[in-house]
């Protein structure tokens, strides 16, 4: 019989199709719980979780906090303006310090790719990757998969991801997850934002946005990071929105029942017009709601003992 056997969630890459199904099914149970009047269950009472954010975040950090609190775990959140290295401590020393606190689970976001992996090697606690550099953001991909699945199925769907694919951990995790679950993935954006060897990730590259959108079931947008302008990736927001922004006209090409997703925060008027962002296609706020359920499911699966008996 299938059992979820992971101690850490470092990336979508490590998950099997059964793992992903199991996480999404578990999230269903929790999604029901959070619509009740009393949204708290005692499942993780006595467990300690720490949120370690080395990068600014509102949504993901709050989502993990909410998930932990609804499961009755003790949670501490640290926002660190920069890596411990600034203080002259190596990352491995930081890990040893965390280990000494006898935590059950560490949720970490870090601007450097691979940090959760390094941490997991040195601590006994479980580690959840809440976004590492430009590498992976597995919980975002899982909540996106969940949101897509709520609309029907994932297998065979045609998905287009638009924007700065090269620098996006959300794109990377979603590509891996969607491909695993049997969806077709196309990426689109300015050539400077498409990684070299993008095809090696199992996606199709279509630069022309209208063509890329044609007959798609899911349109996934990424936030344009303005700071990338200095890296010569694009000349300016005006040019970007003209050639790579999503507007009502372009939406005519997608399937009628298509959905639009965005991991937030949105640059309204740049990568997406107001009308499209707030229009009937948009499931952007569903993503946020589902995020809490997905994270509850993960906390439960990783440190809840994997038994169903405390769920109600």
């Amino acid at each position, binding site marked *: 019989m299938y059992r979820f056997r992971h101690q850490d969630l470092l990336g979508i890459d490590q998950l099997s199709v059964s793992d992903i199904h199991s996480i999404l099914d578990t999230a269903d149970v929790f999604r029901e719980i959070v619509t009740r009047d009393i949204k708290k269950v005692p499942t993780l009472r006595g467990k300690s979780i720490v949120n370690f954010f080395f990068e600014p975040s509102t949504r993901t950090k709050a989502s993990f906090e909410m998930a932990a609190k609804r499961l009755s775990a003790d949670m501490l959140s640290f926002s660190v303006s920069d*890596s411990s*290295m600034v203080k*002259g401590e*190596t*990352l*491995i*020393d930081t890990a040893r310090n965390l280990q000494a606190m006898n935590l059950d689970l560490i949720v970490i976001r*870090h601007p*450097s*790719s*691979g*940090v959760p*992996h*390094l941490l997991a090697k040195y601590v006994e606690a479980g580690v959840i990757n809440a976004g*590492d*550099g*430009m*590498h*992976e953001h597995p919980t975002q991909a899982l909540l996106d998969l969940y949101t897509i699945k709520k609309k029907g199925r994932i297998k065979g769907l045609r998905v287009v991801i638009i924007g700065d694919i*090269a620098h996006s*951990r959300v794109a*990377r995790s979603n590509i891996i997850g969607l491909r695993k679950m049997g969806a077709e993935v196309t990426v689109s954006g300015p050539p400077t934002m498409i*990684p*070299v*060897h*993008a095809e*090696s*990730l199992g996606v199709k590259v279509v630069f022309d946005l209208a063509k890329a959108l044609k007959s798609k079931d899911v349109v996934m947008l990424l936030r344009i990071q303005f700071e990338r302008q200095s*890296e010569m990736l694009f000349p300016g927001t005006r040019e970007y929105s003209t050639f790579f922004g999503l507007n009502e006209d372009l939406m005519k090409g997608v399937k009628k029942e298509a959905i639009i997703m965005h991991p937030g925060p949105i640059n309204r008027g740049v990568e997406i017009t107001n009308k499209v962002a707030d229009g009937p296609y948009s499931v952007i706020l569903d993503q946020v709601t589902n995020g809490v359920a997905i994270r509850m499911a993960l906390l439960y699966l990783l440190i809840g003992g994997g038994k169903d008996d405390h769920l109600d």
Partner: protein
Amino acid sequence: MITWIKGGRIVDPRRGREKDLDILINKGKIESLLPPGAFHPPRDSEIRQVDASGMVVTPGLIDMHVHFREPGEEYKETIATGSKAAAAGGFTAVACMPNTNPINDSRSVTEFILERARKANRIRVYPVAAISKGMRSESLTEFGDLKQAGAVAVSDDGRPVTNSELMRRAIEYAGFFGLPVISHCQDLDLSNRGVMHEGVISTKLGLIGIPAASEEVMVVREILLAKLTGCPVHIAHVSTEGSVAFIRQAKEQGIPVTAETAPHYFSLDHRSVMEFDTNAKMYPPLREPRDVEAIKRGLSEGVIDVIATDHAPHSPLEKDVEFDRAAFGIIGLETSLPLTLQLVRDGVMDLPSAIAKLSHNPATILSVKGGTIEEGKEADLTVIDLNKEYVVHEEDFNSKSHNSPFIGWSMKGKAMFTMVGGRIVWNSDEHNPGR
């Protein structure tokens, strides 16, 4: 006292000779080479015997590209600890790069390095001086004065000369003094914030890539400048298929270019980064399997003249950190010989050619002693057991730093004795009993 190296097979890359000969050493020099059994020690004479039976004796190995961190970063390596690591790896001489703190751009730093090497009293240490003052790519250092002080080459290794006009002048000016110019080829704009080779693995891991073009653009620039000036340029640590092709072409046209590669570029590829191992982070980065094959071909066809380690010690403070923040570089002195011998076993090169790339060729490029076994020459020799098998253990490194991707590797081939000027500076059995 006479030293008698007995029963070994001599590999002399200069003459392409591989022959069973005994060596008699007197007053630091090779006195005579004799067929086995020909030497009968006179009674009552004091003779030290070195039993080399079953082993090969080669000219002392020379590593023309190391970083000994002194002055300035003695917590990573000193000239004494680096020299010990070199001797343990079979090296009798090294050329140390100028990116110390302060930078070796003046007579006083060059003299300091030589003084430290004398104190360490183990191997020959040849300082490489900076091309530009402070390695800032603005103005030339005093090549003549530096040469008189003991510098054997000039290089802005690690912080390449960005100004092409300055590089042209450096090559012209160094030519007059007979100083080779060693170029670390990296277009700093193209490599930008890159931390590994740009390819499928960097795409998968979300790490910023360093394209092969970042190296190749500069290799081509140096070739064109060597052609323009008619003066020699040596290309450091070649890592890409494209670089090998450009250097091959240049040599065919008679342009005075020589090149080196490092053992990691023919032993590892970019897949080593998959676990975010910072000991797989170096500049240039580990490339693709096809590049590794091209490097081997370049070695086999003589396009690449030299194997040098780019020995770059770093402490845990620089390496036990986030991959993208970790320092570039690995140590190499104690693993270079067995990794090179692996190429011989794989049929990439024969033994004399491999030894040439580790001794005779760097000696020729730098115009320094050694690289040959001849009567009347300095007795800088390495006695190698080609069949010695062992595992690389972190605690066995003589280098002060342990940043090596080869820890845990099974190796074959080891320097058993290292001899500088007739003096044994390393005896493997004494230092590693039981291993």
